[in-house]
């Protein structure tokens, strides 16, 4: 069965500093990988996705993620964090074998210090 692990429950980062959120997945075939962000009181917004091709994926709001098959990872990065990036971030995996469902990680809550 597929699974996603986000090892960091909370991360605190200073505004302007870089951010990296870790995601490891388990999936028996070629994965489709996603990062979603959830601001308080809001729904899940897609930041970026990987289906195939270039393993470095660019997303919205200045985020990028790199798919590393050998490490079963899909870490999310942002070079310079803004206060508005404070939110909860979810990694998710899907794919042909998964049908039409995504499996989510437990999320990482990001706090941004002034």
């Amino acid at each position, binding site marked *: 069965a597929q699974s996603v692990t986000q090892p960091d429950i909370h991360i605190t980062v200073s505004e302007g500093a870089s951010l990296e959120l870790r995601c490891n997945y388990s999936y028996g075939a070629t994965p489709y990988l996603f990062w979603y962000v959830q601001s308080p009181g*809001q729904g899940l917004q*897609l930041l970026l996705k990987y289906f195939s091709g270039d393993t470095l994926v660019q997303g919205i709001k200045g985020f990028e993620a790199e798919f590393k098959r050998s490490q079963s990872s899909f870490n999310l990065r942002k070079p310079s964090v803004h206060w508005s990036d404070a939110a909860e971030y979810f990694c998710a995996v899907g794919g042909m074998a998964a*049908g*039409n469902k995504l*499996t*989510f990680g437990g999320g990482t809550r990001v706090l941004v210090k002034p």
Partner: protein
Amino acid sequence: EPEVTQTPSHQVTQMGQEVILRCVPISNHLYFYWYRQILGQKVEFLVSFYNNEISEKSEIFDDQFSVERPDGSNFTLKIRSTKLEDSAMYFCASSGTGGLTTNEKLFFGSGTQLSVL
């Protein structure tokens, strides 16, 4: 950007009561989903719906749950007899013509927070 709309944003109910959570997916989408997130836990898949029938469901989606697309725009989740453990944020989502097995984007609504007392 198009939106998935969910109503109500919050719902409080007594244990044993029936609740219906409502969603308006994006108009040209064909695949519809419900996910839920119990406080402090992962977002979990409940059910997917395509061509007026359930295409997949999880173990969570037992006989107490049902989904329906009563007209051309709404997609509902019904819980027949709510339990305390049904308290969660319920997210509706939709995707386009190919579903998630193709290069489709999944759009989520902002959720309905269900509290069962």
